[in-house]
């Protein structure tokens, strides 16, 4: 079925709809990973976004029940040059088209994804509509204006506290939309986990007497997340660590500031320099916001830098056991180069 993507700057890309066909509005972003579309589709950090894959052939190895990062597809829409109708892999259980249908998410294929990517790169992240009908100018405006992602974290966070037993340290996780891989990385390392909804209070966390607090990844603008105030109350009381959105929230809680990137970092090839160990890691990244340089208090030091644009990729508190990274050491999708960062995160919460 013919469909099109209408961007808020008026640019229109024509293609064909697939998956579950319904008019959808979202923030259009691109991801440069050549593999990992299943992990991306199900990563809660993409909530509210429509993701363009820059690699043209998507769906080649199908989808399965093992590689999801959450219970369902979290993106609003998937935009590809060509979806694969004959996936092939020994673990393939779904075809891309059917998977999106099952998850009631629209796909758009057959458009010039490179041109779309360059548009976003040059003009910045934009809202867009995928539709199969002709919309008037006012309909487009209305539709675009209806878009908000302010409640994203609440939508993807766990609804009730959950405990996962383990022999190792006890981590209180605040779930802003945590990826399965992060939970699994902690489980693999023997940790006991108490997972709290994003609406949790500092008191509730302290009540379970964790060894440390972990702030998860998640979607949207960190400044929309009210939990910052609770995090601030925990400073100095418990070791605190974080990944991605969790890292941004921690920076905000410490008195730093965040800003929106023009088009974000989304891909699995992002070089990051570990300034402490003078080592380069290729990392998986997915963030549209970043901690603003020079806004951090003096007792916070930068531990990691992006080698692409020199933005902050990790911070550590000089006095307290506080440590967070912007990238995704748990990979999935992406390289395992930063696997040891997960150990560092756990180490910094050791009692």
């Amino acid at each position: 079925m013919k469909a099109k993507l209408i961007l808020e700057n008026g640019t229109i890309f024509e293609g064909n709809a697939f998956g579950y066909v319904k008019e959808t509005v979202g923030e259009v972003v691109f991801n440069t990973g050549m593999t990992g579309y299943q992990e991306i589709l199900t990563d809660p950090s993409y909530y509210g976004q429509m993701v363009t894959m820059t690699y043209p052939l998507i769906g080649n190895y199908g989808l399965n029940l093992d590689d999801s990062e959450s219970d369902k597809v979290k993106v609003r829409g998937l935009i590809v040059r060509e979806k694969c109708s004959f996936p092939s892999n020994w673990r393939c259980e779904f075809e891309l088209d059917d998977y999106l249908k099952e998850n009631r998410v629209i796909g758009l294929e057959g458009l010039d994804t490179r041109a779309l990517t360059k548009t976003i790169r040059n003009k910045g992240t934009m809202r867009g509509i995928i539709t199969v009908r002709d919309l008037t100018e006012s309909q487009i405006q209305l539709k675009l204006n209806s878009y908000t992602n302010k409640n994203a974290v609440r939508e993807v966070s766990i609804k009730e506290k959950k405990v996962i037993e383990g022999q190792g340290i006890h981590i209180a996780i605040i779930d802003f939309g945590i990826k399965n891989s992060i939970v699994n990385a902690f489980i693999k390392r023997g940790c006991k986990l108490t997972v709290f909804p994003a609406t949790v209070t500092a008191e509730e966390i302290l009540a379970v007497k964790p060894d440390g607090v972990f702030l998860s990844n998640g979607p949207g603008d960190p400044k929309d997340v009210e939990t910052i105030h609770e995090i601030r109350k925990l400073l100095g009381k418990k070791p605190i660590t974080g990944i991605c959105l969790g890292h941004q929230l921690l920076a905000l809680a410490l008195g730093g500031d965040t800003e929106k990137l023009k088009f974000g970092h989304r891909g699995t090839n992002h070089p990051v320099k570990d300034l402490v160990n003078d080592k380069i890691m290729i990392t998986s990244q997915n963030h549209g916001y970043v901690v603003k340089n020079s806004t951090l208090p003096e007792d916070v030091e930068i531990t990691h830098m992006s080698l692409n644009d020199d933005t902050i990729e990790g911070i550590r508190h000089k006095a307290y056991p506080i440590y967070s990274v912007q990238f995704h050491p748990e990979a999935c999708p992406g390289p395992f180069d930063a696997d040891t960062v997960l150990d560092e995160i756990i180490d910094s919460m050791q009692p």
Partner: protein
Amino acid sequence: MPKNVSIKKVLVIGSGPIVIGQAAEFDYSGAQACQALREDGIETVLVNSNPATIMTDKEVADKVYIEPMSIDYLEKIISKELPDSILAGMGGQTGLNLAVELNDKGILDKYNIKVIGTAIEAIKQGEDRESFRTLMQELGQPIIKSKIVDSIDAGVSFAKEIGYPVVVRPAYTLGGTGGGIAEDKEELKQILAGGLQLSRVGQVLLEKSIKGWKEIEYEVMRDSKGNCITVCNMENLDPVGVHTGDSIVIAPSQTLSDYEYHMLRKASLDIIDAIGIVGGCNVQLALNPESFEYAIIEINPRVSRSSALASKATGYPIAKVSAKLALGYALDEIENAVTKKTKACFEPTLDYCVIKIPKWPFDKFRRAKKTLGTKMMATGEVMAIGNTFEAALLKAVRSLEIGQYALYHKKASSRSLDELKRRVTIPDDERLFDLAELIRRNYRVDKICKITGMDAFYLNKIKGIVEQEEKLRESDLKDISRDWLYTLKQKGFSDRAIADFIQCSPMEIYHLRKAYHIETVFKMVDTCGGEFEAVSPYYYSTYDIYDEVDVSDNKKVMVIGSGPIRIGQGIEFDYCSVHSILALKKAGIETIIVNNNPETVSTDFNIADKLYFEPLTEEDVLNIIEKEKPEGVILQFGGQTAIKLAKFLQAMQVPILGTSPDKIDEAEDRERFDALMEKLNISRPKGKAVWSLEEGLIQANHLGYPVLVRPSYVLGGQGMEITYNKVELENYLIQAFERDQKNPVLIDRYLLGREIEVDAIYDGEDILIPGIMEHLERAGVHSGDSISIYPPVHISLEIKNNIYDITKRLASALSIKGMINIQYILYDHEIFIIEVNPRSSRTVPYLSKVTGVPMIELATRAILGERIKDMGYGVGIYKESEKVSVKVPVFSTQKLPEVEVSLGPEMKSTGEVLGVGRNFLEALFKGFVGSGMILPTKKGTILVMLKPADQKAFIPIAKQWIALGYTFAATEGTARVLIENNIEVKVVKKISEGVPNVLDLIRSGLVDLVINTPTKANDTTRDGFRIRRAAIEASVPILTSLDTANGLLDILSSGLDSHQTEVYCL
């Protein structure tokens, strides 16, 4: 300034002559490395015996030595130049082995030279099978059950333990030479015998076969701080079992999930980190298609063919970055030349699909055993970029220049289902087409997966193409809607393919495209999937809405490259294309290059102002011309590939710079050319084009046997033979007309004279002949396979003047603008013309170097309208150099089972080396040594077998050999003649006379040299053929022309050895 300030002068070792398994990719890597070193102000000394390379240009390194690639000569150069460092990983296996040998022999220590880049110990750990296995076990990296054996018995007993089939891989050989898969004990014994002998260390690896597993490669980099990245991964269409050099390769991998991709990536990086690679490295892995099980196959701790492919596939210059890493830089200290924003530690991401298809020499070696296995046989490769898999595949197919524009293949279509089924399980060069045909006949895709081990993803893609082909076959031009045509173009269908299926002309499709406003658009290769703004002028075509190439208002000229490396059209033409580009740039003209060969310097995006990586077909080239609208197109440097576009481009009113298409045709069309010769009163061997067997036989009777026969319009003497009698001629003509009825066969009187070759530049008025070359072998041996001598030693001034006169008259008559190549025969004091090529030839690079005349630059300037007399090199015959240079051909016949060894009118060599000396003997000596010939030791045994015509002439020569202390062995016929002339000879049994016979003698290592002039070539059943193969396979030097044998005798009589020869800086 280099990061490591103790590095001031670096020796870079090249890879020597082009052979199968080691081709132009090392010219690309070596040239890049030198450039990277010089950027840092480092003095570079380059050694390579191959004169056809860009890397041996004076402009590339500070000191260039075109010298034999042996320890003796390297030490001479080292003692003269005293470099403080050596860079080993740029010259392929040859360069690496030499560096290891220099180290092991203590030469590096003696001269206090450090190895920069990957250390010798690390190289050894990566290359030595046993220590590599040990390391893998330590790292917990899975490997295939295997064992190193050094004897046949040990091999057989290990195979019994792990079960057949087993794979045999010799240590330290090129392109897997001497390896194979053995299905049973007998086959194993046979392969082991060869492999053990070929391995430099007498070891081979036996391993459990993992047939059907996916073969995946990672190109990875590591800096001296231990930072590692992946440049690219690649998936072979052919599962494990076919050498990756003979596989169709796709980048990036298509069928690996994210987890699998990163699991193998991590394994690759862990390995290079443990070994301590500094620079680029290739890791080959096998992945079980039914589980996460994988195994490391091998690593290549250097730049390689795969790294050249990965560089071109991604835009990431692996060799250049490797050289910088060797200087001590870290990956984050090197700029990404494509984006100028990101660093070299950025892992490229592709937003297109890349396919490589090997180019095999089976069109030249029709009788070769074509089965692909673990021994590489391809001479070159093509690469294509598309943003659909189908487009990349079809572009690659038509880049091969095998007459295929689609997957429909006439020969495959005539095969039975049984035959197709059998053939797809035993891969050869036609497998892709057999697969398509099998699918076309509705054979189940899942079953093909099962019997071939190929992934269904690829087969379904092929199926999609086949379905479109079949739909087209049932359609007419009027059925082709805009939408359908657009889809077809997006899927890579060429106008020609569409036209062939619906039976119209490609022009009709072209016009339909224009009427529908379907325009080609061009996209950029930018390493980053569009994430960052890129400055790389590197493009490919597609059908899309948005074109991203800006066209300037500058005066611009397009140069057409020469496509894949093949016998007859090798790296020499890339040299020419690159130099033409450089000359145009110097003249202030914007340059555009089009080529499809990923191995070459011309497809380095730093060379031209714009690089279009595209097939060199009429349609693909025209699309770029319509986009760029250059002032003109230069065809004469891209070999026959470019020249054959002349007529079409002229018809499309594209300005062709240089000699006009009509004159090109006059030089190539037999009848027009004969008429011209008649008019100019220039002699040529009598001959005629014939269209039938009857006509041919009459013509031969008229000329008198022997006659030289060949198809018209061919490359490198393809299909050319000398026939000595009616029966031979009949056989030849019947076969020739069976293959091609549309073109005539040329029959010439065969003159056994001295061959002379000339490359000249003509501007319309004046001619410059940089040098006249003479061939050591008399006519009958293809000029590309002859030993060529400059300046000539047997040609009088009078003859030279005559040659000058004829060359000038010819150039003038053909209105040449730029290069012309002419081959003459001097027979009975008369000069005959054999062939004229209105283009640059394969001798141009070497001649440019030894004469000091920048021939391509001058030719390019002449094309642009400059006068030769204003160029500073004079006119007429250029002054002869004081040194003598001898170009010696190098063959890869060892790697091609059942291929004829003896020299003839059809070209067989894949590469060449140059010997430079104060005199002819020194030059020839170094040429022989450089070509890899092991000169027979004093008092050695020479096996002689001569055709009757040569026997008499050999007698005086034989006496000289005897006088030098050599002894002869011969089979009955030749032995009798020698005995009759009182020459002592050991009589050896013929093959049919029982054992031990002549073959056993060769295989036992008791023969030091074979001199065999064949009575009949290409007959695999004859003794001569089998003896020649035996010699080649046992690495015994073999000469098949008495002229070459004489040359060797001259050297041996002079008592020259490497100690008495010198090395000369270019």
